[in-house]
Every structure is written in structure tokens, then in C-alpha cells.
């Protein structure tokens, strides 16, 4: 026998590896830090343009505002990582807290007269969200629908559902149990921000260090290979839709808290911002690629831009258009950066 399996060939051929700098660059991009220099630049520019920008009050305000989008985007990332998408998350943001609200408030305030005890609020909202997620998983895994069409249908259905259960009327002051997370402050810091940070941290750790996270990346990268490696692919898909909807339900609760009401139009348009934030953060719509650090940077970028444009008193029509332009520019940047650093082509 000529070749031994255990010949001393080093698997880490150091000499042929890339230089330290380009290795740092690759890691920087792969970890999802691409957008942070841009973010820093924006903050510096912002400090000069609008004096009110770099105040702690405004910064906390930005964080509070992005926490709803942030949770939705983190939820969306679960589904996008496995190469699917979920448009119905926008519907969940509106539907879940509305359902909780009508179950809580008395009939006189627009409720069903069920008047569930306050502690049930979160239970109802998140339970409904979770069930919706499981329904999505069922449609994709068991029925075999393309998630674009099944979640699009559900999005429209939920939009109508909100109007049905609320009789077309927003519910004001649905009670502290439902609004606490979105409105209370601890030591001057909004609870919503704390929730966002905690969720982002936990999900970030799971994505990077937990076997479930690893399974998500594997399924998104090559579903058949994941199956052959012994991963229960169907269960991973179900669970991704479940967590996505659950986090969107939580986002909806935060939003209801901040507005102190469950509004019938709540969450409209948020799915577009969520996709934008995910892509800006380096999440590949083809699946298998993306980090929570990146997602957070995408969410912050959108939040900071909106805030700056408002502070700079740009007319609101222009705010919307320029947000769109920035999204495209940022997506181009992320894609180019990830291609140049890793040489792997991704679909974003």
C-alpha cells in the first residue's frame, strides 16, 4: 500500500493561507460586522447635521423604535436561514396583540366580553402567534406549498382577521398586562429595548453555538446534505416557522404597548423593512448565511436613517423614498463585501 491514511499531512496548511489582514477582513464580513463602519459613519454625520441626534434620549428613542422591527427581523431570519420566507409575519404583528386585546377588554371597550384575567394577555398573543407559525410549517412541510404563496395567503387572511375580530375598530388602553413590555421603563431604559437585546443575545448564541442553529445553517445551505447527515429537516422547518411567528407576535405586543392600543393597521409594511434589514445585515435570501450581529446592524441602520431624516426635517415623502434608496445601496455593499471576502456567490 502506497498511501497511508495517517500520513502527517497537516490539514491547516498555514503557509498557503491568506494574509492576516485579509483573514481579518473575511472574518469581519462573515461575522456580520460589514455594516457597522457605515453605521458609525452615519452616527458621526448625524452628530454634525442634527445636534439633537447624539443625545442619550434620542439614542434610546431610536432603540425603542427599532425593537419591534428588530424582533420581527430576527424572527424572519429563522425562516430565511433555511432558505424559505414568511410574509405572514406582518399579519402576526397585527393579529396576535389584537386577539389578546379583544379577549381582555370589556365588551363596552370593543372586547368580546370574555374579559380574561390580565396574566393571560401574553399567553393568548404568543399562543396565537405560535399556532400561526405551526400552521405555516404544516403548509410547507406536510402539504408542500411554496412558502411564498402560503404565507402570502395567510398575510391577507390575517389582515382581514384583524378587522373581523375587532369589528374594524382599534382598541385603546387594552390593559397593563398587554402594554407593560412595550411601554414600561426600568432605570430609564424601555423594557422593549431590554426584551430586544435579550432576545437578540439568546438567538445570536443559539445560531452560533447551539446544535439547532447549526442545523438551520445546514438545512439552508444544502437540504439534502443536512438530511444525509442525520438532521431531522422537517422538524427544523416547522420550528423555524414557529419561532418566526412567535417573535413577530412578541414584536406585535411591544408595538401595542408603545401605542397603548391595538390598532387595526398595526404592523403594516413591516415585512418589507424586515427583509431589507435582514439583507442589509448580510442574510442571504438563498439560505444558509447570516448572523444576528448582522441583522442587528441592519435594523439599527434603518432606525438611524429614519431618525436622522426626521430630525433633519426632510419631508416625509422623501423619507420613504430615501429609505428605499439606502436599502438598495446597503444591499449592494453587503453583497459585494461578502463576495469579495469569501469568494462564495450568494443570492441576496
Amino acid at each position, binding site marked *: 500500500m502506497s498511501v497511508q491514511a495517517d500520513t502527517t499531512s497537516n490539514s491547516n496548511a498555514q503557509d498557503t493561507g491568506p494574509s492576516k489582514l485579509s483573514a481579518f477582513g473575511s472574518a469581519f464580513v462573515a461575522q456580520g460586522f460589514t455594516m457597522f463602519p457605515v453605521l458609525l459613519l452615519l452616527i458621526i454625520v448625524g452628530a454634525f447635521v442634527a445636534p439633537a441626534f447624539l443625545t442619550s434620549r434620542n439614542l434610546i428613542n431610536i432603540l425603542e423604535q427599532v425593537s419591534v422591527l428588530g424582533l420581527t427581523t430576527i424572527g424572519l431570519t429563522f425562516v430565511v436561514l433555511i432558505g424559505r420566507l414568511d410574509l405572514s409575519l406582518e399579519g402576526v404583528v397585527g393579529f396576535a396583540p389584537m386577539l389578546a386585546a379583544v379577549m381582555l377588554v370589556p365588551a363596552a371597550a370593543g372586547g368580546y366580553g370574555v374579559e380574561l384575567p390580565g396574566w393571560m394577555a401574553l399567553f393568548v398573543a404568543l399562543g396565537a402567534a405560535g399556532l400561526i407559525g405551526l400552521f405555516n410549517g404544516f403548509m410547507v412541510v406536510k402539504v408542500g406549498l411554496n412558502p411564498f404563496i402560503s404565507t402570502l395567503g395567510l398575510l391577507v387572511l390575517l389582515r382581514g382577521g384583524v378587522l373581523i375580530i375587532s369589528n374594524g375598530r382599534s382598541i385603546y388602553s387594552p390593559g397593563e398586562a398587554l402594554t407593560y413590555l412595550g411601554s414600561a421603563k426600568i432605570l430609564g431604559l424601555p423594557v422593549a429595548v431590554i426584551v430586544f437585546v435579550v432576545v437578540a443575545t439568546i438567538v445570536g448564541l443559539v445560531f452560533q453555538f447551539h446544535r439547532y442553529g447549526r442545523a438551520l445553517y445546514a438545512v439552508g445551505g*444544502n437540504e439534502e*446534505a443536512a438530511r444525509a447527515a442525520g438532521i431531522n429537516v422537517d422538524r427544523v422547518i416547522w420550528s423555524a416557522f414557529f419561532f418566526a411567528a412567535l417573535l413577530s407576535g412578541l414584536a406585535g405586543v411591544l408595538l401595542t404597548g408603545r401605542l397603548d392600543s391595538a390598532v387595526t393597521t398595526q404592523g403594516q409594511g413591516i415585512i418589507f423593512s424586515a427583509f431589507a434589514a435582514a439583507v442589509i445585515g448580510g442574510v442571504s435570501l438563498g439560505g444558509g448565511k447570516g448572523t444576528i450581529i448582522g441583522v442587528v446592524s441592519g435594523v439599527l441602520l434603518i432606525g438611524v436613517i429614519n431618525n436622522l431624516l426626521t430630525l433633519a426635517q426632510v419631508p416625509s415623502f422623501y423619507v420613504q423614498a430615501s429609505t428605499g434608496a439606502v436599502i438598495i445601496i446597503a444591499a449592494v455593499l453587503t453583497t459585494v463585501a461578502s463576495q469579495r471576502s469569501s469568494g462564495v456567490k450568494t443570492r441576496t
Partner: protein
Amino acid sequence: MENSHPIVEMRNITKTFGSTRALRGVDFTVMRGEVHALVGRNGAGKSTLVSALSGFTSADTGAIRISDTRFEATGQNYAALIRDDIAHVQQTPRLFDHLTVAENLFIENPLIRKKFGVISHKSMLARATALLNEWNIDIRANAHAGELDAGTRQLLEIIKALSRGVPVMILDEPTAALSNAEKRVLFEHVKTLKNAGISFVYISHHLDEVFEVADIVTIMRDGQVVKAREPVGTLDVETIANLMMGEETVRSAREDHTDKSAPILLQAKGLRVNKFATADIDFEVRRGEIVALAGPVGSGKEDLAMILAGQKKPQSGQVTSPRGTLPTIGFVPTDRHASGYVGILGVRENVSVGGLDILSGPLGFIKGRKEADLVAQLARLTNVISSSLEQPVSQLSGGNQQKVVFARSLCRSPDVIVALSPTRGVDVGAKEQLYALLRDLASKGLGVVVVSDEEDEIEQLANRVTIVFGGKIVDELVGDYSIKDLILHMEGVA
């Protein structure tokens, strides 16, 4: 036949991918009416060279002439220039699954076009049926391409290219998915077309095919030509292998350690492997043996292996173990691109995905240290060469990708390893390393099941060969046998 007129001339061709110099000033000439074999290890630059020739990827510099078209390469796309001069059949068929066979064969073909671009379905079907008959392919011309097996798809791709009527054809590993009968048909056509003046550039890892079909051989190594235009009659296997490797190589021989008394690890009873199977299969895998499943494409040997590995449910019957619980099984799938590795993930993640349960703690978090150690150990064992363990697997060569798939299958320290086409599309050096690995595993007491279409591979590896045909076991070879025995038994004439 006058063979002195060159139809293809490539001068000083270079091509760089990132920091890799894939072609370093290559000259390549093909005469009219010759079959020109291009051989070399994976990564030697064969595929890059023919891609530069067909315009599939554009060469950076150099001069190219095909037939009457001549131009200087500048890195710009020139495929359109030479569209009518050359056809390139890629390793993996690129058919439209949702179109019919006839539509696939005649896509963008002026022969069936009427006025205003309207397509004559009648003439297309007639022509397609005639072609299929000529090639002895027993399918309907209006079947969907997606329903066909791999061999037929490969043949269709070749027929499609041949029917375009170009003077030069590139066949890149055309026989990888073909059965022996299909190979025969292909070679007959190549010879006929050659006599009609068509030139072929033929890439193959199978040197026996090269000897059978080629007139002229060019050997490449590390992006350069090491032997140009050598008549095939003056070469032998040893010489070619040495030029490919750049050093003396010896083909490794089989090690026999069959032991009838070794305990059975895995046992199949009364298996019906698919819905076409007409008989039950009984089969067992013993400790320390390498058993090969041989047979023609579609014989059910792959089904049997998939069932043994727990990747597929049998039609009836079951797989058990005398020890009660089923042993841990490592699985190497047939097609590493489709189901072997996750291209955008690194070596580390690809390997450890095979053993997430043993690498994670009670809460499911992966123990980084343990993972790093295990992956490093397995990468050493399987000889994975990568710039780092974080390098995306899609960037590795075919051989290294396959080693990563092996490393993954070994993650949970299996008792049995089931490997389908373990060295498909892998160069000679990596092949020997994988053979050595499999022998090493068997000597450590694992049961090894190999499914292969290559007689050489089986003869080099397996202590026992089970021949599967039509969903049942028809023959078995144990212990000392020669490759001739094997072929005769597989053809059912021994």
C-alpha cells in the same frame, strides 16, 4: 484519412481564479477527425482548458483558433463567437426537467423552426424519435426529461450536442453516469463521427476508456501540459499515471481480512429494495470486512445500501442487528454535490454536522473545544487539505470535498460505514487515500459497505462482492478473485 490539418489551435492560454493560476501558458492543438484525450488529476486544469476552448469560461490571455474563427482572449466573454464551431458536454447534464426529451434535444435548433420562429412539433417529435432509435434509447420522445435516470440524461446531453453539427465536440467525463451498454453505444457513435471528420476532445478519469477511444493523448499537471499530442499506442497506464502524478505511483492492492467467524454487525432479512424487486434479499455485514455491492445502474444496489444505512425505507422486510440495537452507521451519499456537503459552510461545520448530538451539552449548545478537537482529528484521519478548517467546502477540490464527506460520516464513531460511489469524480491521489482510509477503518473493526460502478475500485477494495441485479442478489465473490472474475460474474457468464 488526412489528419494533418489542425482544427483547434490554442496558444499560450492563461487563466487565473483569484490567487490560483489554473492555466499557465498552455498550448493545445486538435487535428481534424481525431479523438484527443486530455488527462490529468483533478485540479490539473483540464476542465478549465476545455471551458476556455468552448467559451464557457473566458481565458485571460492567449490566442485561440477554432475552424475559421480566430481571436485573442482578453478575459471578455467570447462564447458567442464560436457558437457554431464547438459544442461542450459538461460533467453534469444541463437539461430542462420540465420540457420533453424532444424539446430538450432541439432547443434553439434551426432544423425544426418555421416562419416567425414557430416550432413544428410534428417534425421535432419525428426527428427526436429517429435519434433515440439510432442510439438505442428506449424512451418516448415526449417524456419529461426530469423523469429520466442519470445515464439517459447524460446520453441526451451528448446527443443534443452532436446533433448541432459542429466540427469540434468536447466530452467532459461523458461516461460517469453511463452503464456499460450505454458506453458501448456512445463509443460507436464517437468512432463513426470521427470517421466523418468530427474532432473530439475527451476528458476522462478512466484510462481504459482513453485507450479504447482516443487517438492522441495530452497530459496536464498543475495548469501546464506535461506531455503534448502523444499517440495513444506509445503510452501505457504506468507512464500516464506517472506523468499525471509527477512521481512514481503504485496502484494499491486489496487486503484480505475476511473472517467468517467475525460477528455480524448488520443484518437484512427479506428485503424488497424497491417496488420492482421480485425477490427477497438476505444480507449481512460482518466486523472488519469490506463488502462491495456491484451491478448495473438501476439494479437496486444503491437502494439496498440506502436501506442498510437507514436512509430509505424498504418495500418490505427489515434491517436488524444480532446485538439488538442497530449499530451507528456512517453514510457517504452518492452525489456529494447534491447531498454530501454544504458548500457555503466551512470544513468544521460540514464535518461536525454529522455528530451534533454527541458534540453538544445537555442544553444543546455545542462544546467548541470538543468540536474543534474532533474535527481536527477527523480532518487529519481523512487527509483533508484546506487553507483552514473554516474554508468554505465549495472552494475545495473534488477529492477534498469527498474527504470532508467521509470525515462527516465518521463523526459519531460508527460501527458500520456505507459509502456510495466513494471516489466518484476524485483524482488518482485522493482515490488512493480514500482506499487506504477504508482499509484502515475495516482493520479497526468497522464493517464497510461500498457501492461502486467501477470494477477497478471494487477489485482494489472489497473482500467480498455481492452482485445485485433486478433487485435481487444474483451472485457473490469471496476472498481471492481477479478483476476478470469480477467482470465475468457481473456479466453473469461465470
